[in-house]
């Protein structure tokens, strides 16, 4: 194989570049590879563009929030600002209006698309079964088995919502958000009964 750059020498260096999902293979001789290697590092840097770092949106005026207090652990929002750590899981609800935008800034998203604890899945499955719902035929789920039907629905809805937001399909996103709310309302009511 001859070198792609000079077309004369034998290609001994094989380079695969992926730029914007476009795979490009280059076969180079030693001499041209040297020239190319100087650029190689820069090209790796091009993928920076993928990061699409959005400019930091201005923080909401947080003064009003400083006196907010978590009813469970007593942490105030002021404490949180000072320590950078929350006091307990309930703080997330107590400081909700500030944490939503903060999570969005940190993660670029503020909707969980991952795993749900097995104990919650078991509750949801019991609920579906009690209601004689479809998909409960597999019976009580052993802890550790994945993808029970009910969780699938909430989780897949969330994943779809995330995609909709990314593609700026806001109408679709609003519908999905409402569907998720409905589903979760049912779930919370069930949790309280237990």
């Amino acid at each position, binding site marked *: 194989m001859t070198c792609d750059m000079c077309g004369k020498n034998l290609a*001994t*260096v094989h*380079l*695969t570049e*992926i730029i914007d999902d476009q795979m490009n293979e280059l076969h180079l001789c*030693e001499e041209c*590879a*040297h020239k190319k*290697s100087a650029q*190689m*590092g*820069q090209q*790796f*840097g091009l*993928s*920076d563009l*993928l*990061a699409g*770092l959005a400019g930091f949106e201005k923080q909401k005026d947080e003064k009003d929030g400083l006196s907010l207090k978590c009813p*469970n*652990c007593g*942490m105030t929002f002021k404490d949180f600002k000072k*320590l*950078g*750590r*929350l*006091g*307990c*899981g*309930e703080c*997330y*609800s107590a400081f909700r209006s500030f*944490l939503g935008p*903060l*999570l969005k800034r*940190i*993660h*670029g*998203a*503020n*909707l*969980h*698309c*991952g*795993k*749900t*604890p*097995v*104990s*919650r899945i078991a509750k949801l499955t019991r609920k579906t079964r009690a209601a004689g719902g479809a998909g409960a035929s597999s019976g009580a789920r052993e*802890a*550790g088995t994945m993808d029970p039907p009910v969780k699938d629905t*909430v989780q897949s809805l969330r*994943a779809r919502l*995330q995609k909709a937001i990314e593609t700026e399909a806001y109408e679709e996103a609003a519908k999905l958000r409402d569907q*998720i709310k409905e589903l*979760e309302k049912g*779930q919370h009511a069930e949790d309280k009964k237990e």
Partner: protein
Amino acid sequence: MQLNDILNHTSEWLKGTGPHSDIVISSRLRLARNIEKLPFPHWASKKQGKSVLEMIQDAVGKSDLLNKMTVFILEDQDAVDKQFLVERHLMSYEHAQKTNSKAVIVDDDEVVSIMINEEDHIRAQVMQSGFNLIEAWNVINKIDDALAKELPFAFSGEWGYLTACPTNAGTGMRGSVMLHLPALVMTKQINQVLAAIAKLSFTTRGLYGEGTQATGNFFQISNQVSLGQSETDIIQSINNLIRQIIEQEGQCRETLLASNRGMLEDKISRSFGILKSAHIITSQETTELLSLVRLGCDLGIIKDINRRHVNELFLLIQPAHLQKIENKKFASQERDIKRAELIRKKFEK
């Protein structure tokens, strides 16, 4: 299992096996979990911290998957033992400070370790040799399920697992891959690579995690985002990035071999020579030289040394390890002598 048993044992992740183990040392996944309603460790009273420790110990005891693991209560360990656990990557440096109600639970192969009352109530980690985050996920997912069966985790449908620091919320998952990138460093391309990584929402750290310097050409790359993507998506995105870096390092190694073989052989052989003959040596210098010896093994320039033994040496030359091996406390200068002695012995034919 005792700490001394660990000493005479090679950690699974150091075995130098697994996919791409010439460039990837290890793959690690950790999950952050908290018990609902209970204050996070930094905000908890002594009594609350103690009861969290007891609850988790109890849960571990009830699980067939976890109950054979060894629990090390940190208040019972002396400074060297704690440092020893840190050097073996079984717990973080932060965990070894202020040890109130803290513990670490370790399995015999040192694949799994569970820190109790670190920044979160539970920090479970799984470490595999080579480039293998998917296997790490399979293991840690089961451990997480076993714990969730016994403990009510702080979780919200919207924001996932709730953690002390919002940077970990969502999946609570951090994947880290430890890479050995001597060729990218030698060809000075590493800075561009690191700059690109930073802009892609990944972080780079040194050998011992947060706040540590990259020594010996080791770089630990982790995801920053833990919310808004599923666990498998996060793993996928780390894998995609790591594959590119592996390729870059591989190409750099080939280029160096093709164009600068003589220089490379000289550097590597000199490093090996110093290690084989030094009588006083710091851990910093050892790590730098061992890095080149490891590269020499990978490139076939050093033929009669197994990569696994080089990997082990990175660990054995650390201060707490040296003191555990000799079963004696040494001041820093004495350690430099003992270290040189140990290395000479290891490389003796």
